[in-house]
Every structure is written in structure tokens, then in C-alpha cells.
């Protein structure tokens, strides 16, 4: 019969200790043979009973949630997949017919590539991969409606009216009062649906943020180009990454081991971001129960209200008055994820996709292993 550690002992084991100058107990230790007499082998039912998900925020382009009871290696796999392996559509090829602006062709093409696009999920799912043909491999051949989207940008800058040039001579510098089309924005990229795209996409393909400035022009300058957007992954180029950020941090803990009272309590609260520490009056009950609080009823006492908002700045460890009164730490298996989508996916669906992709990776390796074993 394996030894079963107490809940308290387990909590202590997964606490990363944060000291003034060092961090200790950072490594996972839930492995078989690590703790004498204890069984830590993989157990799906145990994992099911321990694993929890807690949502803090779930907006389309911004989600925050906690995954509790997971190992770092797995949480990190999800994070890495979110950033680098979920496919999105981005501008890959730019065909410039005319560009007399002062932005060089290649710089302009690069800027266009980085513009995040958005469309209906249904349409994006329908799109398949496009492989550029090379000398040896014909790839996907000519781009087709099911693997490439086309957008057009046509703009020419002119004087606002006949008198504008005179106003400029008189010293007017505001471009809005002098020129037409002097700034070209992402919204000026127009989708040209081809083939079945109109039916499949339902809503038009467009830049997520319409007001990204692409080029500035002056009268007589002209841009005429079209672009092809294809599906790709962040591993290939950051423009294909579906997230602005996907990150996690560990849940901070603050343990007040000896009461912090009066002016000290106020100073203590100031060591943390707002809302982390609050001041409460010592009740009569507490004063009679605890020796340290004897005769202190009515005084202000520091209590931990919301450790999640702490930045773990360790400011409180710099002051001698809090010495041996506070312990900082982090919970090793409590990951506070933040996922910010750039527009093609909803943030919660992105995370689900990352988990699915990790599973697909396993399946792929399993197939490879089966093939190798014959």
C-alpha cells in the first residue's frame, strides 16, 4: 500500500519559494521513485480529479484563465503551439504594378505582410494549404480559390482642389487641407473573391484593424498592387501567428506568518499593487485567541485579499520591519494563461485548438512508431 501524503504536504511541495535574492524549490517532483514509498505514476482518474480550469475573462480577442493541476512541460507545450503552430491566413505574395511612393517596394510588401486579416471561421477552415512551386517540386501549382485569397490596393494621391497648391505656397502644412489620399490604411485593401470564395466565406475577408497606416503619399504618387494571402504557421513567419501574445504566469502566494499591524500594515500594503493587500481591524475574538494580538483590538491589520494581482516585485522583502513576517511564493501547477487573438480565431477556441494540435502531434508520432515497428 503506497504512502499517501497529506494535502498540506502536497501543497507545500508544489510551492515555489521566492526569497529576497533566490528562488528555490522550482523543479517538479511528482515522479515515481522520488518520494520513498509514494506512488506518483500517471493516473488518468487522479488527473481528472485534480485538474481544474477557472475563467477570469473571456472576450473575443482577449481571454484570461487558470489551468490548475498541470505540469509546466504540458502548459508550455500549449503556449508554444498557440504562438507557432496554429494556422492563419496572411499576405504572402505582393504583386506591385506601380509604386511611385517613397516607400521601397520590398518595405511596402513587408508592411502588408504583417497586417492581420480576419474573416468568418467557416471560410478560414475551408481554406487549405498552398505550397509554392519550386524547380524540383510543383507544389500546389497555380494558386486556386481554395488555397489563396486575393486583395487589391489602388490609390493615387492628388491635390485636394485647384487652390491647394497656393495654400501650400502660403505655408499651409496640414496634409488634410492640401491632399486627397495622402495616407493609405489597411482598410484600403479590398478583397477580390474568386471562385467559390464568396459562398464559402459568408462575410468578407478584411484587415482586423482598419486603421493601420501602410504608406504616406504626396500629389502625383501612385500605388497599384494586388496581394495573395495564404495559410501558414507562426513557425514559418511571425505574421502567421494567431496571437498577439499567449503567455502564462504562476499564481503568486503571500503568507503573512506573523501579524503586521498599524503603520507597518499601511506600509506593507503599499509594497504591493492595489487590491492585493487590504487593511482590516483586529476583532476582539482574534485578540483574545492569538497571543501576538493581545490588547490590539481595533488596530489595523494587513490581510491578503487578492494574490493573483501581485506582480511579485519582492518590495516587501527589502524592509527590515517585515523580516520573518512574510513569505512569498508561487504555486507551481497553477498557470494563469493570457491569450490575445489577432482576429482570425476567438481566443478560447485558440486554446482548444492548441490542445487538439498537441494530440495530433502525438498521433503522428504514434503512426510513425507503428510504421517503424512494422
Amino acid at each position, binding site marked *: 500500500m503506497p504512502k499517501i501524503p497529506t494535502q498540506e504536504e502536497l501543497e507545500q511541495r508544489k510551492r515555489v519559494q521566492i526569497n529576497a535574492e533566490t528562488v528555490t524549490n522550482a523543479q517538479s517532483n511528482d515522479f515515481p521513485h522520488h518520494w520513498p514509498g509514494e506512488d506518483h505514476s500517471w493516473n488518468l482518474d487522479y488527473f481528472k480529479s485534480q485538474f481544474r480550469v477557472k475563467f477570469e475573462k473571456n472576450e473575443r480577442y482577449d481571454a484570461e484563465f487558470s489551468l490548475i493541476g498541470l505540469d509546466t512541460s504540458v502548459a508550455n507545450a500549449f503556449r508554444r503551439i498557440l504562438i507557432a503552430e496554429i494556422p492563419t491566413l496572411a499576405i504572402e505574395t505582393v504583386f506591385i504594378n506601380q509604386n511611385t511612393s517613397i516607400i521601397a517596394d520590398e518595405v511596402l510588401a513587408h508592411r502588408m505582410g504583417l497586417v492581420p486579416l480576419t474573416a468568418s471561421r467557416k471560410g478560414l477552415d475551408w481554406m487549405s494549404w498552398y505550397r509554392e512551386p519550386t524547380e524540383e517540386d510543383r507544389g500546389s501549382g497555380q494558386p486556386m480559390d481554395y488555397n489563396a485569397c486575393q486583395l487589391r490596393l489602388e490609390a493615387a494621391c492628388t491635390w485636394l482642389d485647384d487652390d491647394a497648391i497656393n495654400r501650400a505656397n502660403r505655408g499651409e502644412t496640414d496634409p488634410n487641407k492640401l491632399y486627397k489620399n495622402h495616407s493609405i490604411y489597411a482598410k484600403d485593401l479590398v478583397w477580390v473573391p474568386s471562385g467559390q470564395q464568396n459562398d464559402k466565406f459568408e462575410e468578407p475577408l478584411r484587415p482586423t484593424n482598419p486603421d493601420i497606416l501602410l504608406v504616406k503619399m504626396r500629389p502625383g504618387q501612385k500605388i497599384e498592387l494586388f496581394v495573395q494571402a495564404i495559410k501558414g504557421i507562426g513557425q514559418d513567419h511571425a505574421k502567421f501567428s494567431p496571437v498577439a501574445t499567449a503567455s502564462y504566469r504562476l499564481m503568486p502566494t503571500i503568507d503573512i506568518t506573523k501579524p503586521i499591524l498599524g503603520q507597518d500594515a499601511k506600509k506593507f500594503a503599499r509594497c504591493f499593487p492595489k487590491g492585493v493587500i487590504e487593511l482590516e481591524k483586529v476583532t476582539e475574538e482574534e485578540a483574545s485567541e492569538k497571543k501576538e494580538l493581545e490588547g490590539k483590538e481595533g488596530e489595523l491589520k494587513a490581510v491578503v485579499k487578492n494574490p493573483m494581482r501581485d506582480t511579485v516585485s519582492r518590495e516587501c522583502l527589502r524592509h527590515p520591519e517585515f523580516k520573518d513576517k512574510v513569505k512569498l511564493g508561487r504555486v507551481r501547477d497553477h498557470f494563469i494563461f493570457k491569450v490575445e487573438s489577432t482576429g482570425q480565431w476567438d481566443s478560447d477556441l485558440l486554446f*482548444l485548438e492548441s490542445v487538439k494540435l498537441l494530440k495530433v502531434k502525438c498521433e503522428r508520432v504514434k503512426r510513425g512508431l507503428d510504421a517503424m515497428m512494422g
Partner: protein
Amino acid sequence: MPGSTQDQVMTDAQSTRPEEDEHYDPAPDQDRIRVLSGATDTAASFQFDGEDHTLGNALRYIIMKNPDVEFCGYSIPHPSENKMNLRIQTYDNVSVYTVLDKGLDDLMDMCDVVIDKFTIARDDFNAQKQNA
């Protein structure tokens, strides 16, 4: 793109999309795994093509959770080569192949639990927000 640009223009061809394209993976050389030389039944190094820390570390963790495993570790031998090495050593004549297979199965089971619990938590959160 080399050569003329005009011939690259997309056409409106109403072609049916080829099936083979469906599962094309942009990361090259995947589906490949091999055993490095010097392997025995209870100690072997595997080389995975097209894998990195994402699968490497997660797989290492789940294999280390197996009590039959004496040692498991992974490495990326060179950062510019798209390869990942995984070393497994086992106790008591347990085959490394079954250990690796079990590790993959366990990781997939874990993914299923994460998907289920995440979906439930999200739906509860959305419902709660709507009612509030």
C-alpha cells in the same frame, strides 16, 4: 518569385480541391522517427524529425511518470536542425517501445481531459456572465 510575375495571377477556375492537399503539413519531414544506434530493448534513443521542445518536454514528463522508467530525457542536438532526440531507459526488461507508446497514449488522454474541462468551465463562465 522567379521569372515573370503576370503568369502567377490567380484564376477563377472552379476546380475541385485535391484530397491529398487536405493533410499537407507545412513543417517538413514529419511522420519520421528512428532508433539511434546502440539501442537495446530496455535502453534506446529515438530521433524525431520535425519535433521540438513542444512535444519533447511534454513527452519526457509523461514518460517519467511511468514507474518502469529508470531514465528519460530529451535534447535538441543542434538548433538549426529540425530534430529532437529522446532517450529512454527502463527497469526489469520492460520494452522501451511499449513505454514510448504508453507515454503517447497518456498524453493524448490528458489532452482529452483538458479539452473537456476547459469547455465546461468556459460554458459555465459565459452562462454566468449572461445571467449577471
